[in-house]
């Protein structure tokens, strides 16, 4: 009960900025940030740093098949442990940032992080986003539907229309994202249709999110009114 009251006070305090910035908000904000920074400081130390540096089994805690076989046989790991050392060294370089004169050395671990991210994304995007989308975009514009062996005109037109709209959405959208050609004439018209499609997508996303956020609020109120205050049967 006490904790709920504290939580309630903090929530109200933080939400009070809606009214205007006020001392209570400033107080709650400071407490909230202090607690959270402290919490993450401790938990990242225990959950990330410590296990990573002392971890004997590798990052996932799962061994590859042959590494597992090797482990069973010899009781030691094939995985190169000197990586822990590299990680530790890069970590220390990061800390050197606090020393003004040699702080620039911290760019090495940062380069390491950005470099590996960039390399990974380079190929990841190509695989999951570009190539896979081509496959999904090939739809027959005329899609005959057969019901009991005979061509059903209404269903065929419906399916075909669906495919046509879909293909139009993809192609006009791609045209909209064209940067090196002026949006004029037919090209400009196509790009305009593309932005219409984009807006329909955003509208739909917004509508669905309204639904989801409202569900959350309702769920929370349901809990408060029913389980906490017992106002509902």
């Amino acid at each position: 009960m006490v904790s709920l009251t504290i939580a309630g006070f903090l929530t109200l305090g933080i939400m009070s900025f809606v009214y205007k910035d006020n001392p209570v908000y400033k107080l709650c904000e400071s407490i909230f940030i202090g607690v959270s920074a402290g919490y993450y400081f401790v938990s990242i130390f225990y959950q990330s740093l410590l296990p990573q540096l002392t971890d004997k089994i590798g990052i996932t805690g799962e061994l590859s098949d042959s590494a597992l076989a090797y482990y069973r046989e010899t009781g030691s790991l094939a995985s190169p442990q000197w990586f822990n050392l590299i990680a530790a060294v890069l970590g220390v370089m990061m800390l050197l940032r606090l020393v003004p004169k040699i702080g620039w050395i911290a760019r090495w671990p940062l380069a390491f992080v950005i470099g590996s991210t960039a390399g990974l994304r380079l190929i990841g995007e190509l695989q999951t986003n570009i190539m896979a989308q081509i496959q999904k975009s090939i739809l027959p514009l005329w899609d005959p539907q057969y019901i009991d062996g005979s061509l059903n005109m209404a269903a065929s037109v419906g399916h075909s229309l669906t495919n046509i709209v879909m293909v139009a959405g993809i192609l006009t959208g791609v045209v909209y994202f064209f940067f090196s050609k002026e949006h004029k004439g037919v090209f400009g018209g196509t790009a305009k249709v593309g932005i219409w499609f984009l807006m329909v997508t955003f509208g739909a996303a917004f509508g669905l999110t309204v639904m989801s956020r409202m569900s959350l609020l309702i769920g929370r109120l349901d809990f408060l009114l029913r389980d906490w205050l017992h106002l509902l049967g």
Partner: protein
Amino acid sequence: MRKLFLAALLSTFFLISFSFVSAQTPPAPVTNLTAKDTPSDKGAQVDLSWTASPDEQRAENPVIGYQLLVALSSDSPFVAVGKADAGASGATAKDGLKNDQSYYFKVRAYAADSSFSESEVAGPATPTGQWWNTQPNYIWIFVGMVMLVGFILYNIRKAGKEELYIRPIAGINAIDEGIGRATEMGKPILYICGLGDAAQAATIAAFSVLGRVAQKVAQYQSRLIVPCYDPIVFSICQDVVKGAYLNAGRPEAYNEKDVFFVTQDQFPYMAAVNGIMLREKPATNFYIGQFYAESLMLAETGFQAGSIQIAGTDQLIQMSFFIVACDFTLIGEEMYAASAYLSKEPEQIGSIKGQDWGKVVFASLSLLGVVSALLEHKIGFFEMLKKVLLAE
């Protein structure tokens, strides 16, 4: 080795006991058994393939499954190494196999009453790990990568020689205006790199835009506030802003305390940023990067504080919020192009042109597929293209 022997002993024992139990005719064995190292794998696996036992089809006591057996030489005892269902004409043996060791294989066809028969021995096969993945879809991804990278690099080279056109984007033009507005009003600019970590592409885009923004801010002599969510992102942001001030020739104007870490926690972070907005009343807010549920609360508070707001993200749902609540939104690829636009360096413009070539190829492949799908009955081109693209 001892384990292998023990298992062999056990299986021999079962073999004997089964042969006592099953009085019925055992099924016909599988034929044409071959064993080959699994291609494009990390090793320790062998692919087996065979012609199924004809007795899968017989009405009485049909074959219900296969057991894969392995041994170190063709005459040493065989142990189980996997199974396959009836109807299969191949399987991968992998339990306990080691790289660079030769193995021999047999397949045992089991009938419903547990009677069985064994195939001829196949092998030797030596599992090894490959250094290049030759599966068709990997080859296609590689081809795609070489092509797109080629497009971008070619255009970057070409851009040095001739001027390339890029169309104006409202959101990007607004960035300059936003910085100018802050200078006129004498108020700071707030830049949020989102809640992503440095391993997210959107965050990297946020760094590059921040670099351009910071350089302009330094030139115009206004103030830039960058509260950060992720510690690595925070360190990089410090470097970015410091470097930009240096570039602009005003390193002394860089204030380390204006690029700071808050906490790695969604709502406390949001509370802090809201506080900054209400107190500092920034003239312009930038939200570039990865955003989650907090996006709308930030944008609404920014509106309340009277700031011009420019957002960019590649998250569809947050894009919709930003489009509704912000003054300008960079949609998806526009955010990734923003840095190149702002830099106005020919190389950067060239890379944008390269991206466009990629889109032309994408659109033409889709169109080609669509057209051939339309002519499906006339020519088999669609089937071919589909095979190529789906890497079947």
